[in-house]
C-alpha cells in the first residue's frame, strides 16, 4: 500500500488542502515551523486509525479555519485507489474501494496488513519526539517495542505485558512464600482444619472410656452415699438424746403434781360456765319485767286522750267525692262565662253579614241558598264565554280599521309612482344601448392599436435606415478575443461537436442539437473573430444585406397592419354616427351620452316595477276589508245571545237581580261567610247549655251534704267550694283518730302477754341455779369457783405431760429402738452423747467430700458421653475441609490454566523473536554500518539485550551510545522492522517527521542515503523544516518530489470577507510567458482595497511557486505595497 495523496477539509490550520499523485519512492514535505507538518502526520494517523476522542490527552487539531472536521486519504493498492475518509463531529469513517463501493473496517484492516495504531506509530510513522522517547526507554522495553510490540499484529497487548498480567494472575493464586496467595492461604486453613479433625476424632474415640468412667463414678456415688446415710442416722440418734432430755424431765415433774391436787367429781369446767349463764338469765328476766310495766302505763294514757265524732261517719264518702269534684266545678264556671261572651260575639257577626246582604236576607234564606262549587264553576264558565265573544268583536273591529288605513296609503303610493313614470319618459331599449357600447369599445381598442402600429412602423423605418447605412459603410467589430482564446474557442467548439456526436449516437437528439449549435458558435467565434493588429485591415461584417432586406419586409408588414386598423376605426365610427376619423374627445362625448341613456333606462324599469307591485297590493287590501266587515257583524250577534242566556240563568237560580258573573261570585262569597257564622253560633249555644246543667247538679248534691253536716246549705260558687273543703278536712281528721285508738289497744294487749312470759322465765332460771350448786357439792357460788380453778390447773399439767410424750414419740417413734432410747434418756448422760456427736460429724464430713468427688466425676463423665454422642464436630470440620479442598482444587485448576497460558506466551515469544529477530537485526546492522560509515560494524543480541559492535569488535551497550547515534540505530532498526513487516504482508509507507535534526551533516547524509535506499522498496515521506534536508535527500535520490508548505498554510483565511472576484482574463496560461504580476495588479485594481495572499492566489488560480517572485517584483518596482508582517500581510496598489 502507498499514499496517493490526501484532501483535508478542516484540520488544525488546514482547510481544503489537497495533495495528489505522490510518487512511489521518496517525497519531502518542506515547510517552516508552524507550517503544519506535525498536524499533517496527526491527520494521516487519525484518518487511518481514528482521531483521539474527548477523553484522550492527545492534541485534537480542531479546524481553525472552519470547514468540516477531517478529510480523506487516497491509498493505492494493486487493485486501484482506495479512499479512506473520516469527517464530521464526531468523526464518521468511510472506506471506498477502488470500484467506488463502500468498504468495511475489515477491508481497511486487510489493506493495512492488519497493522494497528501502535504498529503504525512505532514502526512506520513517527516524529522526532517519539524517536527520542524511544531512545530514552530501558533496553527491555525497547526490545519489547521493537521485537515484540511491533509484531503483535492483531492482538491488542504486547506479549510481555500479557506475560506480566498472567504472572500476576497466577501469583494471586499461588506463589511460594506469599502468604496472601489464595492457594497458600487455603492450604494453611486446610491444615488447621485437619488438625481440628484429628482432635475431634480422638475425642470421639474416647467415648467408651468416658462411658466406663461414668459407670465407675456412679458406683462410687452409691457406695459412699450408703455409708454417709448410716453415719448420719447414728448422729441423729445422739442429737435426739440431747434434744429429748429436757421434755423427758418436764413430763416427770407434771405427773407428780397431778397426783397431789383434789377436786369433787361433779366439778367440771362446764359447771362454772353453766352457773354463770343461769345467773345472767335471772338478771335479764327481772329487768324485762320492769320495763314492760312502764310501757303498759304509757299506752293507757294515750288511749284516754283520743276522742272521735260519730256524726261524720255516714257522710264521709260523699264528702270525699264532692271534694274531688270541686276543681272541675270551678273550671266549668269559668268556661260558662266565656261561652256566653262568645255566643254574643257570633250573634253580632251574623247580624252584620245579613245586613250586608240586604233586608231580604235572614237565617232561613242563607241556609237555603246554594253556593256549591259546581254552581260557582258554571258561573265562571258562563262569564268566560261572554268575555270571549266580546273580545272577538273588539279584535275584528281593530283589524278592519287597520286594513282601511292601508287601503288609503297604497292608493296614494300608486298615484305617486304613476307621476314618476310619466316624468322619466321613454329611453332607448337595452339591445340598442348594448350595440352602441360594443362599437364604442372596438373603436377605443382600434385607436390604441393605431398608435402602437404607427410607432412600430416608425421604428422599422429607422432600423431600415440604419441597416442601409451599415450596408453602405461595412463597420469593423470591437476587439475582444485574443489568439490564445481563439484556439480555446476552437478546441471547445470541437469538444462540443464531439459531444453532439456522442449524444446523437446515444439517441439523445435534443442535447445533440444543443451541443452542435454551441460548438458551431464557438468555432465560428474562433474562426471569425480575430485580434486587431496594426498589420491587418478592417474586416467586413457578413449578413448586413440580408438584415436590410429583412427590415424592409418587416416595414411593409407593419404598414399593412396599420392600414387595417384604420379601416376598422372608420367602420366602428360609422356605427356610432361619428366621422371616419373621430377624435378622442368625440369618442368620449359619445361614450358619456350612452352612459346617461343607460341610467335613464334603469330608472324607467325600476319605477314601472314598483308601480305594478303597489297596484297588486291595493287590490288585495280591498278584498280583506270587505271580508272583515262580515266577520264583525257575526261576532256582535253571538255576544248579545250569550248575555241573554245569562239573564235567564240568574232568574232561575233566585238571584235577587241580574248580576254579572263576577258580581254573582262576590254574592256567593258573602253568603258563604254568613253560613259559616251561623254554624259557629249554634255550636256555642249547645256547649253553654250543657255546662250550666252540670253545675246545677253539683250544687244540689253539696247542699244536701252540708245540711246533714251541720252547715249552711244555701251556698254556691266559691263559698260552696270553701264549705265543702272545711267539711272534708274534718272527715279526714276523724278517720285518723279512729285509726290511732285501734293501734294503742293492740299494743296494750301485746304488753300484757310479754309480762306474763317474763315472770315464767325468772322462776325457771332460779331453779337451774340451785341444781348446779347441788351437783358440785358447793355451798355457794364462791366455793364452786374455787373447785373450778383447781380443775383448770390439773388440766394444764396433763397437757404438759401430753406434749412431752408427743415430742418423745415423734423423735423416737415406737418399738425396740424407741424403748432403748428411752432407757438411754433415763441415764441422762449428756456428756457422752455430745462426744459421740462430735466423732460422727467428723466421719460424715470426710465421707461427704468423697461422695461429692464421685458425684462430680459422674456428672463430668455423663456430660462427656453426651457431648461425644451428640457432637457433630467431625462432620462439620470435614465439611469445612471438603469445601477448602474443593476451593483449592478450583484454584489449582485455574492456576494451572493461567500458568500454561503464560508458558504458551513465553514459548511463542521466544520462538517469534528467534524467527524474526535475525533478519531484522541483520538488516538494521547493514544500514547502521552504512550510516556510520563503518564505525559500527554490526549489532548483536545477547540474552535478549541489544549491543552494538564497533570496528574494533568492541561490544557497546545501547544505553551507552550518544543521543544521535542511538537515534540512528533506532531508525535503522525501524527500517529493518518495516522490511520484515513488508515481507509478512504489512507493507506501509514510512513517514518521518524531522528525524534528522540531531545528526551531524555526515551522519545526516548517511541517513539520507539509507532513507533513499529504503524508498526504493517502500514509499517514504520525510517532513522537514530544513531546506538542506531536502537538498540531501535530492542528492541521495534525484527523482524525489518536494512539496513546499507555507507557515500558517491552509487555504482560506479565517472569516475571509466575501468580495466578488474582478473579471479577469479567464484561464490564465500556466506558461512562463503569462504575466502574473500584471494579473495581481489588475486584481488589486478591480478590488479597490487591501487583499491577502490567499485571496489573491485563490481568485487568480495562481500557482504558489509564482507568488513570491511576482509579489516581490511588484513591491520592488514600487507598484504594490505590503502592509503588516507575513502572517496576515495585506497587499494594495501604491497610492490606491
Amino acid at each position, binding site marked *: 500500500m502507498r499514499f496517493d495523496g490526501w484532501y483535508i477539509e478542516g484540520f488544525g490550520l488546514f482547510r481544503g488542502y489537497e495533495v495528489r499523485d505522490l510518487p512511489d519512492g521518496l517525497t519531502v514535505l518542506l515547510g517552516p515551523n508552524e507550517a503544519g507538518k506535525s498536524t499533517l502526520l496527526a491527520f494521516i494517523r487519525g484518518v487511518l486509525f481514528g482521531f483521539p476522542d474527548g477523553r484522550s490527552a492527545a492534541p485534537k487539531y480542531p479546524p481553525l479555519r472552519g470547514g468540516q472536521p477531517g478529510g480523506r486519504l487516497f491509498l493505492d493498492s494493486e487493485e486501484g485507489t482506495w479512499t479512506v475518509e473520516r469527517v464530521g463531529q464526531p468523526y464518521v469513517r468511510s472506506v471506498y474501494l477502488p470500484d467506488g463501493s463502500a468498504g468495511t473496517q475489515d477491508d481497511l484492516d486487510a489493506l493495512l496488513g492488519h497493522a494497528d495504531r501502535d504498529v503504525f506509530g512505532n514502526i512506520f510513522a513517527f516524529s522526532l519526539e517519539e524517536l527520542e522517547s524511544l531512545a530514552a526507554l530501558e533496553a527491555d522495553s525497547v526490545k519489547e517495542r521493537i521485537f515484540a510490540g511491533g509484531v503483535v*499484529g*492483531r492482538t*491488542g497487548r504486547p506479549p510481555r505485558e*500479557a506475560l506480566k498480567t498472567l504472572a500476576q494472575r497466577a501469583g494471586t493464586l499461588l506463589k511460594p512464600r506469599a502468604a496472601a496467595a489464595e492457594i497458600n492461604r487455603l492450604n494453611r486453613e486446610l491444615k488447621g482444619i485437619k488438625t481440628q479433625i484429628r482432635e475431634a476424632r480422638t475425642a470421639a474415640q474416647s467415648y467408651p472410656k468416658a462411658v466406663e468412667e461414668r459407670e465407675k463414678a456412679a458406683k462410687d456415688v452409691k457406695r459412699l452415699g450408703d455409708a454417709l446415710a448410716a453415719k448420719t442416722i447414728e448422729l441423729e440418734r445422739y442429737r435426739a438424746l440431747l434434744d429429748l432430755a429436757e421434755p423427758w424431765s418436764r413430763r416427770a415433774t407434771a405427773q407428780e403434781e397431778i397426783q397431789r391436787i383434789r377436786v369433787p367429781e361433779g366439778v367440771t369446767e362446764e359447771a362454772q360456765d353453766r352457773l354463770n349463764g343461769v345467773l345472767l338469765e335471772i338478771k335479764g328476766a327481772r329487768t324485762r319485767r320492769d320495763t314492760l310495766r312502764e310501757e303498759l302505763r304509757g299506752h293507757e294514757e294515750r288511749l284516754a286522750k283520743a276522742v272521735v265524732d260519730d256524726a261524720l261517719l255516714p257522710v264521709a264518702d260523699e264528702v270525699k267525692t264532692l271534694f274531688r269534684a270541686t276543681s272541675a266545678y270551678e273550671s266549668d264556671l269559668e268556661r260558662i262565662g266565656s261561652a256566653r261572651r262568645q255566643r254574643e260575639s257570633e250573634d253580632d257577626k251574623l247580624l252584620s253579614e245579613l245586613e250586608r246582604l240586604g233586608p231580604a236576607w235572614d237565617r232561613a234564606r242563607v241556609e237555603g241558598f246554594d253556593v256549591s262549587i259546581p254552581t260557582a264553576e258554571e258561573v265562571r264558565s258562563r262569564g268566560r264565554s261572554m268575555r270571549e265573544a266580546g273580545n272577538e268583536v273588539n279584535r275584528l273591529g281593530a283589524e278592519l280599521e287597520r286594513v282601511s288605513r292601508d287601503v288609503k296609503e297604497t292608493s296614494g303610493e300608486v298615484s305617486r309612482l304613476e307621476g314618476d313614470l310619466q316624468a322619466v319618459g321613454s329611453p332607448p331599449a337595452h339591445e340598442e344601448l348594448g350595440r352602441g357600447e360594443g362599437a364604442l369599445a372596438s373603436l377605443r381598442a382600434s385607436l390604441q392599436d393605431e398608435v402602437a402600429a404607427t410607432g412600430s412602423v416608425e421604428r422599422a423605418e429607422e432600423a431600415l435606415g440604419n441597416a442601409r447605412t451599415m450596408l453602405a459603410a461595412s463597420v469593423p467589430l470591437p476587439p475582444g478575443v485574443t489568439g490564445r482564446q481563439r484556439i480555446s474557442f476552437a478546441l471547445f467548439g470541437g469538444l462540443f461537436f464531439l459531444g453532439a456526436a456522442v449524444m446523437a449516437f446515444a439517441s439523445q437528439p435534443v442535447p445533440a442539437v444543443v451541443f452542435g449549435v454551441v460548438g458551431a458558435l464557438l468555432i465560428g467565434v474562433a474562426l471569425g473573430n480575430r485580434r486587431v493588429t496594426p498589420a491587418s485591415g478592417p474586416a467586413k461584417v457578413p449578413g448586413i444585406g440580408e438584415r436590410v432586406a429583412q427590415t424592409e419586409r418587416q416595414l411593409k408588414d407593419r404598414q399593412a397592419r396599420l392600414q387595417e386598423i384604420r379601416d376598422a376605426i372608420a367602420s366602428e365610427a360609422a356605427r356610432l354616427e361619428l366621422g371616419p376619423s373621430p377624435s378622442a374627445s368625440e369618442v368620449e362625448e359619445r361614450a358619456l351620452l350612452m352612459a346617461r341613456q343607460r341610467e335613464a333606462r334603469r330608472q324607467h324599469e325600476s319605477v314601472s316595477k314598483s308601480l305594478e307591485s303597489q297596484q297588486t297590493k291595493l287590490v288585495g287590501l280591498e278584498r280583506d276589508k270587505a271580508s272583515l266587515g262580515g266577520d264583525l257583524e257575526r261576532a256582535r250577534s253571538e255576544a248579545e245571545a250569550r248575555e241573554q242566556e245569562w239573564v235567564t240563568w240568574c232568574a232561575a237560580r233566585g238571584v235577587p237581580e241580574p248580576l254579572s258573573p263576577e258580581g254573582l261570585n262576590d254574592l256567593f262569597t258573602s253568603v258563604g261567610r254568613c253560613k259559616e257564622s251561623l254554624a259557629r253560633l249554634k255550636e256555642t249555644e249547645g256547649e253553654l247549655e250543657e255546662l250550666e246543667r252540670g253545675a246545677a247538679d253539683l250544687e244540689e248534691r253539696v247542699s244536701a251534704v252540708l245540711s246533714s253536716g251541720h252547715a249552711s246549705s244555701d251556698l254556691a260558687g266559691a263559698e260552696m267550694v270553701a264549705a265543702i273543703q272545711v267539711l272534708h278536712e274534718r272527715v279526714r281528721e276523724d278517720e285518723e283518730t279512729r285509726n290511732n285508738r285501734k293501734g294503742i289497744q293492740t299494743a296494750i294487749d301485746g304488753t300484757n302477754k310479754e309480762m306474763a312470759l317474763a315472770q315464767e322465765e325468772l322462776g325457771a332460771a332460779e331453779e337451774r341455779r340451785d341444781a348446779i350448786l347441788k351437783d358440785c357439792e358447793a355451798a355457794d357460788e364462791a366455793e364452786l369457783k374455787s373447785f373450778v380453778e383447781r380443775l383448770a390447773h390439773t388440766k394444764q399439767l396433763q397437757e404438759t405431760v401430753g406434749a412431752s410424750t408427743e415430742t418423745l414419740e415423734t423423735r423416737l417413734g415406737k418399738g425396740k429402738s424407741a424403748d432403748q432410747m428411752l432407757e438411754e434418756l433415763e441415764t441422762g448422760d449428756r456428756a457422752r452423747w455430745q462426744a459421740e456427736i462430735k466423732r460422727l460429724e467428723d466421719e460424715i464430713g470426710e465421707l461427704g467430700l468423697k461422695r461429692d468427688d464421685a458425684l462430680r466425676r459422674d456428672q463430668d463423665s455423663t456430660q462427656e458421653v453426651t457431648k461425644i*454422642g451428640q457432637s457433630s464436630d467431625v*462432620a462439620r470440620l470435614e465439611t469445612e475441609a471438603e469445601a477448602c479442598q474443593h476451593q483449592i482444587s478450583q484454584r*489449582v485448576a485455574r492456576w494451572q490454566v493461567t500458568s500454561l*497460558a503464560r508458558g*504458551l506466551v513465553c*514459548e511463542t515469544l521466544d520462538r517469534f523473536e528467534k524467527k524474526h529477530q535475525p533478519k531484522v537485526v541483520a538488516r538494521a546492522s547493514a544500514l547502521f554500518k552504512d550510516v556510520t560509515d563503518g564505525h559500527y560494524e554490526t549489532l548483536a543480541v545477547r540474552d535478549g539485550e541489544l549491543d552494538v559492535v564497533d570496528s574494533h569488535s568492541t561490544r557497546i551497550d545501547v544505553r551507552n551510545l550518544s543521543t544521535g547515534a542511538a537515534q540512528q540505530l533506532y531508525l535503522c532498526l525501524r527500517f529493518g522492522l518495516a522490511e520484515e513487516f513488508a515481507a509478512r504482508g504489512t507493507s506501509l509507507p514510512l513517514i518521518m517527521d524531522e528525524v534528522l535534526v540531531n545528526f551531524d551533516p555526515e551522519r545526516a547524509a548517511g541517513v539520507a542515503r539509507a532513507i533513499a535506499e529504503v524508498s526504493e522498496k517502500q514509499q517514504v515521506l520525510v517532513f522537514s523544516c530544513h531546506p538542506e534536508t531536502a537538498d540531501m535527500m535530492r542528492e541521495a535520490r534525484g527523482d524525489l518530489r518536494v512539496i513546499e508548505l507555507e507557515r500558517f498554510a491552509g487555504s482560506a483565511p479565517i472569516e475571509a470577507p466575501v468580495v466578488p472576484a474582478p473579471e479577469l482574463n479567464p484561464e490564465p496560461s500556466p506558461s512562463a510567458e503569462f504575466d502574473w504580476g500584471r494579473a495581481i495588479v489588475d486584481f488589486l485594481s478591480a478590488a479597490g482595497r487591501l487583499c491577502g495572499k490567499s485571496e489573491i492566489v485563490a481568485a487568480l488560480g495562481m500557482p504558489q511557486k509564482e507568488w513570491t517572485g511576482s509579489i516581490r517584483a511588484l513591491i520592488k518596482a514600487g507598484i504594490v505595497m505590503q502592509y503588516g508582517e507575513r502572517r496576515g500581510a495585506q497587499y494594495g496598489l501604491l497610492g490606491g
Partner: protein
Amino acid sequence: MRFCFVHAADLHLDTPFSGIGKVDPDIAGALQEASLQAFDALVELAIARTAKFVLFSGDIYDGPERGVRAQLRFLSGLRRLDEASIRSFIVHGNHDPLLTGWSAMRGGWPRLVTQFGHHEVGQVPVEQDGETVATVCGISFAQRNETANLALRFDSGSADGLRVAMLHCNVGGIREHDPYAPCSLEDLIGSGFDYWALGHIHRRRILREGDPWIVYPGNLQGRSPRTEELGPKGALVVEVNDRDINPPEFVPLDRVRFARIDLDATELPDLPVLQEGLLGEARALQVASEGRPLLLRASVTGRSPLHRDLVREGAVDGLLQVLRDEVSGTEPFLWWDEVEDRTLPERDLDKVRKGKDFAAELLSVADELKGADASRQAFAEKYLAELPAGELKALGVELPPSPGPADLDEAAVLALDVLGGEER
C-alpha cells in the same frame, strides 16, 4: 403371603458433602443434618409401610472413624424398627468394613437386628404367622480393600420363602466406583436368589428386572455435585406376594438435593439475560424438587459474545453473588454452589491460525504441544513446577490430572484473551 421390605444402601451417615465450596452457616447446618434426617425418614417409611424387614446393603458409615453421633442415630433408628417389630439386616461395605474402626455400641444390637459377618455368608429366615416367608443371606467386608468375588460364596440352597441376597459389590466393573468385591452379572443370575439387594453404586440402577431382580437402590442422600450424586435419592420399597416381586417402588428420602444446570449461551446477548436464564432454570428445578432445598451448580457453555464479559476478573464471582442474592432467604433454601464459565470466544480460532501474527504463532505452539505427549509433559513440568502437589495431595486435595490437549486449548484461549486485552 403378601409382605413388603425396604432396600437401602450407602447411607454414609453424618458424612461431609464434598466438592462444594463454602456455604452460609445456616445452610452448612442443614447439610450436616441431611444424611441423618434422610435415615430418620427411611425408618418412618418402613414403619408407615409396615415393612417386614429393612435391608442395609453396606456403607452405613463413611469411614472406619465413624462418628459417635452417626452410630447413636443409627442405633436409635434400629431400636425404633425393633419396637415396630421390623427386622433389620446389615452388611458392611468398603467404607465401614467390619474389622476396622470401632463401635460405640458395646451393649449390642436390638433384638431384631442381624449384622452379617465376614467369614461366610449368613442366612436368616424371616417368619410370619409361624411360616417362613423369606430367607435373607449376606456377608460383610472384613477390610476396605475387599477384592474377592464374594458373590460366588452365596448359595441359596433350599432356603424357604423369598430368597434375598445382600452384598456390597461392583457388578460388571462400573467405572465411576472402586472395583471392590468385583463380580459379574452372570455370577448373580445363576445363584438361585430372587432378589439381590446390592450396595456401592450411588446411582440407582436395576441391573435385571426379575429372575432374579438385581438392584442398586443408590445412596440415601446426594453428597456432591458429581453426576451420580445428582437428582432424587432414597430407598426402594419392594412388594412381594409369596415369591413374586413387584417392580420396586422408589421413594425419595433425600433432604437436600443436588442439581446441575447446563446453559448454552451462544445466543445470549448479555449478562442480565444469562442471569435470568439461570434463575428460570433454577425455578423449574425447585418445582421438581418437591419442596426440598437445592444445591445448584451451573455451567455456561457455547461460543458466545458473553465470553468477553465472563472472562473479566471477578465477573463469574459477581454473577454467582448476584444469583445468591436473588434467592437469599427463600424457603426451602436454594444455594448456588458454583457457576462455571465454559464459554468460548466468538472469534474463529481456525481463522486466527491462518494468520502470520503472534496469535497465529501462539496457536501453532499450542497445537504442537497438544500433539506431542513428551513435549507437553516437559512444558507442563517447566511451567507448573511451583505447584506443591505432594503437600496438597497429603491434605486430600484432588489435583487436576497432568495437562492434556483440552487444557492446552483452554490455556490458549486465555492467552489470546489476555493478549487481546480482554480481562480474565
